[in-house]
């Protein structure tokens, strides 16, 4: 199944370079496994009301080398539980990128994204065109094409369903 375009509001912009995603839930909460508890802890240091203002399909925006450090899976599990459908950043740290792509979570590397959007703008990621468009302002930018395997992993919904598909050369 081809990738569905992402369309949603920019629910938050992480402006810090080399952002350590563990901060999203706080390091002390990283071992929480209950998804509701994890979601309740998410974003408390950034926006207390985040869970009430976010809605299904919203996207996150990040700065350069997003996910640097020692990224764990719970922060983005929490974000997906709250409705976040994908992440657009200036660039990504490889460990974080691989980890989240293997979860089937769409990641878009788009140099210039911070200058393109403001919080709560409506944006669209068009996989076919390879562009991110700010629907609120009409401005758009190209994003870096996904590696074929990454694209297929996101299409499949994660590593295990991807590996269950026949290998295409």
């Amino acid at each position: 199944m081809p990738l569905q375009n992402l369309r949603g509001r920019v629910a938050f912009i992480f402006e810090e370079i080399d952002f350590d995603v563990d901060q999203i839930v706080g390091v002390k909460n990283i071992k929480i496994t209950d998804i509701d508890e994890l979601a309740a802890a998410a974003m408390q240091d950034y926006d207390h009301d985040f869970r009430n203002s976010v809605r299904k399909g919203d996207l996150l925006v990040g700065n350069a080398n997003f996910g640097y450090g020692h990224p764990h899976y719970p922060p983005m599990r929490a974000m997906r539980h709250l409705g976040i459908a994908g992440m657009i950043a200036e660039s990504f740290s490889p460990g974080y990128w691989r980890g989240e792509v293997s979860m089937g979570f769409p990641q878009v590397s788009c140099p210039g994204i911070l200058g393109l959007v403001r919080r709560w703008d409506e944006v669209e990621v068009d996989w076919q065109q390879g562009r991110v468009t700010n629907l609120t302002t009409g401005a758009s930018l190209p994003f870096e094409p996904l590696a074929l395997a990454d694209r297929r992993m996101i299409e499949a919904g994660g590593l295990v369903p991807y590996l269950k598909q026949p290998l295409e050369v």
Partner: protein
Amino acid sequence: MGYTITEKIMARAAGLPSVKAGDEVLAKPDYVIAYDFPGYTDVYFKSMKEDFGIERVAEPDRFAIFIDHMVPATSPKEEELHIITRTWCAENNVPLFERKGIGHQVAAEVGYAVPGAFVVHFDGHISQLGTFGTLAMGIRRNILEAFVRERISIRVPHTVRVDLEGELQPGVMARDVFHHLVRVLGPSSCRFQVLELGGPGLSQLSTEGLQTVTGLAMFTGAITAIVNPDETRLAYALPRARKALDPVWSDPDADYAARHTIDLSAIEPVIVIPPTPANTRDLKDYLGLEVQVGYLGSCASGRLEDLRVAAKILAGRQVAPGFQLNVIPTSQEIMAAAANEGLIGTLVAAGAFVSSPSCDYCFGRIATMTQKQRAVSTGTLNVRGRMGSTDSEIYLCSAASVAAAAIEGAIADPRKYW
């Protein structure tokens, strides 16, 4: 235009005459390596059977499993995980290395650092096999692909070449060189690329020192690091190698994404302040800062030269009262050599707590810190909560700096004891 060592290794692994950076290929890893950890190997083993119906791996000698975390086990649950690992390895006839030391180091000792080989692990610190001209990548959960398929999908990475020149000042170690490199080039300078080390200054670093530098490559954003083989490193790797491959070297006219030169003579001891490995600072700006814990070990820095330097600094001296110095040699082989040299005796006499190789000090499973405590550490990482309480702090530095801090109970300049 020539090829990098990485492109040559990837071409062979992909069964192609040549590949270039950016190409997407299906490559067969020579070795698939993992250590057992809850949520990792136990999940892969289960998934192989239940999701993919794989009861036995086809070429067992391509796989290797290490038990180096939770050693020794401190709960029945931890030991149960090890039993799952031992059982899977026995059923599959896959080599298992238990209680030999930290896997990334032991992998080199037992012959997985084959010059010219392509190796995958889920953990990125396997990059240290790059010291021997092996292309070793941490691919996180995608390791499952290598467990269930013969080949993995991979994009041939670009390479950033870093040439070292000049001579190291006394008191400066490979650990300082690496953190200096992060500071100068930046924590994303090699993002998704391979860090290739070369240049006339390479001879300033021992094989062990290069293992330190290559093993930490991920903190430049690199997906691995590699060094073109030389006589010394081949003399270590080839007699141990599990398979015969022709070593390969980068061509002089290889195509690099970027080239940098680092002047080793300009490097002074550094310290990496919490909470990120991107925070390299001058050690001299932190002198006198009180610390209560010292950790000398990890896959990055618990090798013989680290122990020698620490023993030299601590010989005839005492660890400060109340300071906990934990010295954990990286492998059994290293510990035995250190014992034979008398290093262990010197360190113990100075008040160090010396323990057998284990990964557990590095992530605070053992010797956990509580709030407000501060450590100097040769571990891999200084993120909050890495060695215990999220309100404790980790300052990363060289083995020499840890030893100097142990004497003073505060961050200290190792050069005055050198």
